[in-house]
Structures are given as C-alpha cells and as structure tokens.
C-alpha cells in the first residue's frame, strides 16, 4: 500500500464512499472543480461528476441547512466548512436543527450528515485560521464530535462518520495534514510516509466512532489528547522520560470513558491536553469526569494544558501553541506529588 498523508487519506475516504453509495455527495466553498483549499476533495468532481462534488456559495448556514434537507430526503451529504473558524454562521442550523431533529420528531426524521472542517493552530493562520471550537459542539446533545490524529484513523473515522445516522462534526487537525508534528517548529518537518499510520488501505474499512486508542502504554500517568496534541504529547513523554500512557480520544462525544477510567485507575495521575482555549474547553469536561470516576485513585491534581484564553495571536504562534515544553511541565507537576 502506498503511504498516504492525511489529505490523501480523507480524499480516499470520500472517494471510497462516493463509489460505494450513490447517496453520498460532497460540497463546500471551493470544494468542487478546485478540490478545496486544502485539496481534500481534489479530483472528486472529475471522477464522480459535477453534481456529486461541487462549489457552494459562501454561506455556512446555507451549507448546513441544505445538507439537513438532503439528509431528511435520504442522502448522506458531506459538507466542507473551509476553516472551523468560519463554522459559526452555520452554528444555529447545527445545534438547533441537525442536533435536535431526531429527538423532536421522535425518530421520524434523521440527519445523517457529516460536517468536515479543518481546525487548530501551528500554521501562522492568525486568529481566524487557527481556532479549536470543539467544546462548542461537545456541549450539544445529538451531535457526535470526531477528531483523528493519523491518516489511517482519518480515513476510517470519516467513513464511519459518513455511515453514521446521526450528524457528525469532523474536525481535521490541519497542522498535521502533511505530517505529524511534535510541536518543535524549529525541527525539520516530518512527512507522514515515515509514520506507520500512513499505511492506509486503498478500499473500504472503518474505525469505529466512540473508541479511543492507547497510542502509548505507560504506568506513571495518563495523558488525554486528540488531534495534533497526540503527537505533541508523545514528544513530551519522550523528552521528560515519564512513562506516560497516552490516549488518543479520537471521538469526544460519545466518549470512550472505559478506556480513560481504566488507565487513570492504573496510573493515578492525569494530564489533559488541547489547543482550544482553557476556560470551558473540553478539557474541563475530561477533568470533571476523571475526578468523578477516579477520585479515590488520584494521587495528584488533574492538570490541564490548553490554549490561553485569548484569540490566537498571529505573531505569537509559538508562544501560544501548547508545545511539548508546556505539556512536559504539566506532566512533571502531575508526577511531583508522591
């Protein structure tokens, strides 16, 4: 199998599902002829036709709303929101409609749609190309929130999202589209091809929603992360020499609580890591859940490493980005209390 980067893996997921199911189509701003500003839909219009991969007006609200209508008809649309920072004009349709239609219609109408959107920092995108708004979706019942961290998972999870009968918001960590990222921006960029998870099957397979992955087993403490931060956490683990168990959540809602609880009960310590701003970020929910389930096992306070509570500031990319240094420091603090 050829090595795929995350863009190629996502493209392959769409291509696979469009070939498999005529009810799958994709559209978004610049997602048609051009193939998307990150090239994720590249070639799909040429291969599957003008009406199955096309450009949309610049209207995130209209994108989500029409996808909901298509879903109600019986299609499985996959829409692309160009940057997660621009999802908010579609927010009402996502949380007031997509999330609630199954419930309010007692299961009569459903919304099997997938909303793909690149998120996160590390690309000098400034405050409107770097946001991580996942917590604004994890608070909303009726939506599933998914975030891959490798090409293999990206394809398998996107296929599961498309096949899911509930609406899925699928956040793509744009910083690692082309290669894993340790957080050491001063080191040479690694391509995915050197990473085992770039070994992506051509055809159909899936990675189930709601299952976390233990990407590194360890006994000293548990690190909960997702997206780019999985790789940063692994780097921090290597650099601190702490024998951390690093868990890639992969799906935030529904959360794989068993895997988390089993790990923290084993290690007795926990560090939660995300790029999103700290206050009311998803890390708060993780911290609350861990102390609720593992209170008597905890040997030290649960640490949160997160973005500072401010818009993502352009020139301060690397002061803002929660890199391996900050993650490592938190891991050390969590180990201190013996």
């Amino acid at each position: 199998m050829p090595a795929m980067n995350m863009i190629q893996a996502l493209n392959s997921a769409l291509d696979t599902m469009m070939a498999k199911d005529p009810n799958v189509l994709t559209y978004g701003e610049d997602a048609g002829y051009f193939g998307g500003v990150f090239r994720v839909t590249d070639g799909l219009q040429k291969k599957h036709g003008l009406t199955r991969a096309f450009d949309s007006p610049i209207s995130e609200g209209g994108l989500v709303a029409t996808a909901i209508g298509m879903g109600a008809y019986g299609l499985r649309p996959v829409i692309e929101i160009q940057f997660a920072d621009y999802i908010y004009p579609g927010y009402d349709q996502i949380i007031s409609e997509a999330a609630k239609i199954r419930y309010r219609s007692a299961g009569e109408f459903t919304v099997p749609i997938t909303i793909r959107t690149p998120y996160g920092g590390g690309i000098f995108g400034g405050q409107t190309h770097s946001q991580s708004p996942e917590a604004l979706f994890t608070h909303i019942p009726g939506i599933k929130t998914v975030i891959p961290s490798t090409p293999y998972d990206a394809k398998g999870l996107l296929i599961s999202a498309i096949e899911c009968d509930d609406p899925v918001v699928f956040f793509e960590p744009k910083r690692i589209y082309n290669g894993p990222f340790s957080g050491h921006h001063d080191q040479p960029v690694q391509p995915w091809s050197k990473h085992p998870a770039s070994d992506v099957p051509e055809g159909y397979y899936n990675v189930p929603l709601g299952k976390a992955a233990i990407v590194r087993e360890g006994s000293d403490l548990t690190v909960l992360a997702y997206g780019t931060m999985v790789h940063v956490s692994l780097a921090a683990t290597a650099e601190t020499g702490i024998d951390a168990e690093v868990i890639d959540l992969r799906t935030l809602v529904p959360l794989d609580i068993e895997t988390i609880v089993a790990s923290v009960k084993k290690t007795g310590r926990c560090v939660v890591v995300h790029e999103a701003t700290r206050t009311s970020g998803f890390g708060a929910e993780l911290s609350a859940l861990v102390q609720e389930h593992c209170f008597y096992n905890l040997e030290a306070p649960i640490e949160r490493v997160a973005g500072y509570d401010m818009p993502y500031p352009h020139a301060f990319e690397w002061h803002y980005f929660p890199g391996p240094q900050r993650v490592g420091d938190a891991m050390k603090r969590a180990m201190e209390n013996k």
Partner: protein
Amino acid sequence: MKNRNPLSLRVPEPKTRPGDKPDFSAVKLPEAGSVPRPEIGAHARELLEYPFTLIRVLDGKGKAVGPWDPKLDADTLRRGLKNMLLVRVYDDRMYRAQRQGKTSFYMKSTGEEAVAIAAAFALERDDMCFPSYRQQGLLVARGYPLVDMMHQVYSNTKDPVKGRQLPIMYSSKEYGFFTISGNLGTQFPQAVGWAMASAYKGDDRIAASWIGDGTTAEGDFHYAMTFASVYRAPVILNVVNNQWAISSFAGIAGGNEATFASKAIGYGLPGLRVDGNDFLAVYAATQWAAARARANFGATMIEMYTYRAEGHSTSDDPARYRPVDDGKSWPLGDPVERLKQHLVSLGEWDDARHEAAIKEAQEQVRAANKEAEAVGVLGQGNIPSVKTMFEDVYKEMPWHLRRQRQESGV
C-alpha cells in the same frame, strides 16, 4: 461639499395603534383578474412587475375572473371550504383547551386558512412540506387524523412526538410534513436542500416551505433564496405576510420599503404576490410554481398577502399594540366567507349547507377531542413513559445517557 444638516434615525411605526380606527387606506388593490398569467418557463427577468401587483381571482361579488382562475370543479371547492372550516373549528377548540388549562400553549391560523389548504390542494400528495407553526391546514387537508394533532397538543401518551415538543410543533413523515422547529426560518433552506436532493436523484417530487413576513429578516431566508437560485432547486418558497410578527407590524421587517415578493428579484427568481385570502388565487399561484419547478425551471417565491386575524398565540394580546377588530376591516376579507360567497354565487352552496358543514366540523372536532382528552391532557400525568425521554437523542443511546437515565431512577 458636505452639508451640515444633522441626520436623524427613522423608526417605522404602523398607521394605527390601540384607540385608533383601523385604517387600511395604504393597501392598494389592483382589480381581480387584472394580472396576466405568464408561461411557466418565463425568465424571471420578464416577471419584474409581478412582485409589485397582486394576483386575485375572486372579485368583490365572489366571481372567479381572469387568467389565473384555476377552474376548479364545485366538489373540489366544497372540499376546500370544508377543510378551511375544519381548521377554524379545530383552532377554536384547541385555543379553548389551552384557556381551560389542558395544555401549555396554542397558535391559531384564523384568517390564514386558505394559505395552507389551497396550497395542499395544488401540491401533489407526495410533495414535501416544510411549514412554520401556522400551516396546520396542510395536515388537515392531507387527511392527517385530528385526534393525532390533539394528542400532540396535549403531550399525552399517544403524542406522535412523545411529549418532546411544544404544542403545535407537529411532525409527520408519512404526510410529507417536516418536523416544525421553534427556531424561526430554519426550515426554509432545509426545504431547498430537500429539493436539491430530489433533483440530484432525478426524482419528480418538489418541496414547499412557509415562513412569516417577520421571519424574512433572518439569515435563513437569504440562504434559502441563494441556494434555490444557484442550484435551480424545485421548491416553492412562501412568505406568509399576515402583516404582523407578534407585536411588530410588517414595516419592521422592511415591508414599508418594498414588497416581500420583490426580494425574489435580486436572486433571479419569480416573485408572485398573491391575495392569500383568496382560495383560488393561492391555488393558482401554487399550481403555477409547482408546474414550473417540476419542469426544471426552478424555484418560485410567493408572498401570500393576508392578515393575522387573531393573537400571535395564546401568550399574546393584540389589543395592546393594534386597534381592536383591526382584522374585521381587512380589505381582502375572510378566506372562508369569500370561498363560501363564490360557491353560493355558483349556485353550489347555500347558508343551510354552510351551517350543516360547520356543525359537521364541530362534530368531528368534538369527537376527536373527546378521544384525545380521554387519553390525557397536559398536567395530568398521562405523558409518555419517562424512560422515553432519554431516547432518540442519538440512534443508539450512549453510555452517558444510559447513566443519566439510571440516576433519574426511571
């Protein structure tokens, strides 16, 4: 050079307020029958005058005149009239039920019955409707059981939406009636998406949606019009201009500056302006738009020009912001009376039969309500099993909801 006159902020006000006499002198009415009927394939550019006139079929004497006369047979007209009567009686009964404390909330469509009933008649049974909360007439016209509507209003054990929605937020996939949302306007672009899907699949079903005059100010209106225009979606986008949005007159939505129908121009869509209290005009305009959509000429926007004869909802008292009996002076009258007059003028109806029809409607409603109340009304505990409250959030119940259900002790 810059002039130094101070600017001033203009806040529109209606002509009349409580205490004033109703005054509709500003309402300009072209003759019934005076508006030509274009080809269904006409280019929107040729239809620029339609948003500024008013399509009327029934004249002052109840005669059907002009090119828009759909020439419906007497049986159809009688069915239309009976359906409108049934909705009106149903609304009165449910309104009373709320006043009697049997439910939390209700909204009538009084004065606007033709908008929904005539549209349902002109659409195919399998066309998909994305209504607001004031088109209960669609369900009635399609034969949805009254008693099921009442179960929903009472949130009882037989409520089709399991007690989860506010009264009148009906949903019926089987009857082509999309689950009503409390969030204004969201259904408008959803209908466009459904229509795009129908076109994508090479289907022949079209979609129709309804929003109010006030709701046109929401972004969803603009999204719907834009996507419908760009992708030539087979959809009918109805703006029901009943002159009021709760306490705000249509001028607060821009109605003083341009007609709502004229908003279609900027999207290259036909914008028809129709007497919404004229059953035949509503039928004819809907029929035209449906034929246009089915022939792949795309979407039509229709302004249904009508009047909200009663309060916004059971929570509202219009006497606080508009003249009492304002509705009684509405120059386009009442849709029931006007269709009745038409049938009478055709010799196909008379007062006796009208009285009988009302009695029959009341009987139907009384019987259905008896059955529904027997199942249960709100506040008496005859609600669906509390267990079900935790279902349908997702297709499968995730661990955290199972856990919350446990904690709730049900």
